[in-house]
């Protein structure tokens, strides 16, 4: 058995026909205006009894109008391609379920697929019962003036319902049901108006998700060859998600004159090949990832738009701690994923809760004293005195400058071991204080090919050693095309 469907389509035509004939009236000699009830004519006997209060003494009111169907036939002249499907793309305003109101930004997107409806001609009779001729004329004059030659009949105001608007034609008027001068009974007088209306009966529509372009995937420009591969412009099976164009991001760390940590940023979005996907987000914003927060960037500067405003450009609703931020960069195989949430006091930031499974783990560095994958500070050994922070197990990453030299006869006192010997380490080394002396636990000069990850316990920021320099691991500035929002 097919699935049941019923939309009350003919019922709505009759409802509107009754509305169209309602609210007319007659006026008596004293100027009293009495409305004329209009009802469906084919009522059931049981309801008729209820209306009469189950009493034969009840008086039927007069005048009255009754509306009923006399014919419904297929209109072959209006038949069209029965397989035609009309598609309508609609964007709805966002609906706030807390206030039960529509907001003034975009919400869900829909594609409505409508199958060609079937045309019919519906014939309706309207019987007008009046108790005297003048009364009948009053009623008819009010109705007949409206049909010149037709009236619109609209069954609903839904924009997507292409069958809702029809017309109703007055086809004929039967003046009276009585036989003039040839009756012993005073029959009630009924004038009959016959109307016809072309209608459609529709099957249900298909409501589908609208494919709104919030992220454009292109694979036209071949980065390697510097050519445009038009034959690869169409989406194809090679365009896998792991073949995205990735940003070559370098946030090299250094210190300023006062020893404060700085980072120098370079980022280029690059495609591995012509098939690689480039992600284009709304408004081409870049992204600055710092301290587990993200800020929107425009031309390298913080964008004026807040995150609340920006997220409204997407059709999907944003959910704190559910909506994801995904980053792609050339030195990571997969995407770096974190859920984001709005920061009340800082509209231009979202806080990120990283999915640790998408971030590389820190590399454990073992010494004679301890084994750890973290460091405590990053310093320039010529600008920062470690004396006040020295405690057993302290690990430091040295950047910019080396400390000590084999040719020195008396090195810097701040870096001497307890036995008075000088300590020697190079820039980019990780050193450790074991309580009596310093030791190098990561010798950068011997690890050019090795990728080392470590997290600064002082800031919580992860760094990596790659190709002879220390960089921010995944934080930094992501150019447009290297990040996206997933709802």
């Amino acid at each position, binding site marked *: 058995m097919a699935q049941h469907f019923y939309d009350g389509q003919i019922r*709505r035509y009759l*409802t509107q026909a*009754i*509305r*169209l004939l*309602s*609210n007319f009236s007659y006026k*008596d*000699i004293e100027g009293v205006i009495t*409305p004329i*009830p*209009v*009802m*469906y*004519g084919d*009522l059931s006997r049981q309801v*008729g009894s209820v*209306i*009469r209060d189950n*009493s*034969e*003494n*009840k*008086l039927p*009111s*007069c*005048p*009255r109008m009754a509306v*009923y169907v006399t014919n419904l036939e297929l209109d072959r002249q209006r038949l069209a391609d029965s397989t035609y499907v009309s598609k309508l793309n*609609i*964007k*709805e305003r*966002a609906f706030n379920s807390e206030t039960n109101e529509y907001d*003034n*930004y975009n919400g869900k997107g829909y594609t409505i697929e409508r199958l060609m409806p079937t045309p019919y001609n519906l014939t309706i009779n309207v*019987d007008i*019962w009046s*108790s*005297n*001729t*003048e*009364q009948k004329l009053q009623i008819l004059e009010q109705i007949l003036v*409206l049909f010149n030659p037709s009236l619109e009949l*609209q*069954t*609903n*105001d*839904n*924009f997507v319902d292409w069958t*809702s608007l029809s017309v109703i034609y007055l086809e004929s008027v039967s003046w009276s049901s009585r036989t003039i001068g040839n009756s012993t*009974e005073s029959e009630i007088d009924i004038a009959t108006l016959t109307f016809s209306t072309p209608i459609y009966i529709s099957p249900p529509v298909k409501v589908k998700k609208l494919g709104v372009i919030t992220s454009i995937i292109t694979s036209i420009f071949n980065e390697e060859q510097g050519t445009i591969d038009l034959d690869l412009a169409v989406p194809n099976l090679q365009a896998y998600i792991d073949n995205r164009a990735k940003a070559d991001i370098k946030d090299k760390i250094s210190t300023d004159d006062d020893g404060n940590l700085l980072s120098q940023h370079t980022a280029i979005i690059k495609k591995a090949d012509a098939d690689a996907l480039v992600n284009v987000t*709304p408004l081409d914003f870049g992204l600055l990832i710092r301290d587990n927060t993200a800020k929107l960037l425009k031309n390298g500067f913080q964008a*004026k*738009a807040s995150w*609340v*405003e*920006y997220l*409204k*450009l997407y059709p999907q609703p944003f959910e704190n701690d559910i909506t994801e931020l995904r980053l792609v960069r050339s030195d990571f195989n997969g995407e770096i994923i974190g859920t984001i949430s709005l920061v009340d006091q800082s*509209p231009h930031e979202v806080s990120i809760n990283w999915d640790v499974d998408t971030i590389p783990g820190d590399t454990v560095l073992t010494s004679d004293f301890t084994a750890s994958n973290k460091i405590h500070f990053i310093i320039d050994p010529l600008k920062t005195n470690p004396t006040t922070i020295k405690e057993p197990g302290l690990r430091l990453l040295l950047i910019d400058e080396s400390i000590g030299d084999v040719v020195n006869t008396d090195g810097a006192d701040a870096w001497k071991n307890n036995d008075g010997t000088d300590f020697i380490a190079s820039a980019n080394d990780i050193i450790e204080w074991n309580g009596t002396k310093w030791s190098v636990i990561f010798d950068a000069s011997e690890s050019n090919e090795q990728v080392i990850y470590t997290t600064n316990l002082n800031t919580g920021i992860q760094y990596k050693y790659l190709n002879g320099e220390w960089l921010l691991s995944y934080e930094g500035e992501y150019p447009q095309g290297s990040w996206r929002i997933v709802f």
Partner: protein
Amino acid sequence: MPRLSLYKPEKGQDYKFIDNRIFEMFTVGGTDIFVHKYLGPKNTSEEDSTPTTPNYNAVAETNIQDLLFLENRDRKYDDDIYVLRGVYTLQDIDYNLSQFGLFLSNDTIIMTVHITSSIKILGRKIIAGDVIELPHLRDEYGLNEFSTAIKKFYVVEEVTRAVEGFSPTWYPHLYRLKLKQIVDGQEYKDILNNSANEDVPEDGTLRDLLSTFTKELEINTAVIQQAEADTPLSGYETRHFFTLTKNDQGNVSIVTADFSSLDASTQNELADRVMQTPERDGYIGYLLGDGYPPNGEVFGIGIEFPNGSIEGDYYLRTDMFPNRLFRFNGTSWKKIEDSVRMTLTNTDDRATQKFTFINNTNENVIDGEIVKERQSLSKALKPRSDNM
């Protein structure tokens, strides 16, 4: 004149003897009938009178209200109720279901009443149009909420002399009344507007008690409400749809103000605004203009444009018909749409082009004289009486 003849040219003692016996018979065996005496059609006022609907000197049974259609539709009935006795044959009746509900199929009663007593009580012969209530047919067990029983009313359609009412004197003693149940119509308003229960007037009128009018109007109202729920206004509802605003380059038009220093006094720059207000509705179709800006943007209403507007402000001019919505583009107010959607119900404020000629209470002052704008075509600018 023969010595032995029951017929006499004058109604003699034989007639009176028989007539008294018949009256006794009606008194003993008949049932009460309450007669609402028809006094005549209500008089057309002098200013409304026409040759075919004249103004009479007095209300009288002999008056005819409409000399063209030959009908008395606004009938006046005596406030007093006259009690007679009548006899009729009871019969079983069935309901007929018609397009107007249930009707009693053969609810026509042939009743006989005593001539002389009825004339004595009524002051005249019973005539067509008199309404008769049969108290023995009151229905105390209807579904109505009233404490009063539902009464049974008939109207006299014909009055003739009953064959069985002729005595051997050849003089008639009985009238034969053809009675039919009345309807709640214009003709019987005078009766049905009376209180259903004089002791409890708050119970309502006889119409409230007897007529199906209220119930039918409730049903009609419910159907109209359903129709209005289906189609509140003509045309199509698009207010819940989103319109994307584009700039000259075809990109999304973003508000470029610094959000941290918004002037809260400006109309359209909400704190969470990201895009510029649309220059037009994003949906095209028949009767979409409703006077509301796209995307539910805020707008002003009035009869003149406000000062100090900024780009993107909307304003609905209510001094224009139909009301017109404008948008300020920074230099001028551009028309967005006209508010053309309106109710499809025949209300007294419906303002389609056709209904502005019908729903019209305007009055114009022309050279100091107040002239009603709505006038019948046949009466507009007719010459006045100038005693020529």
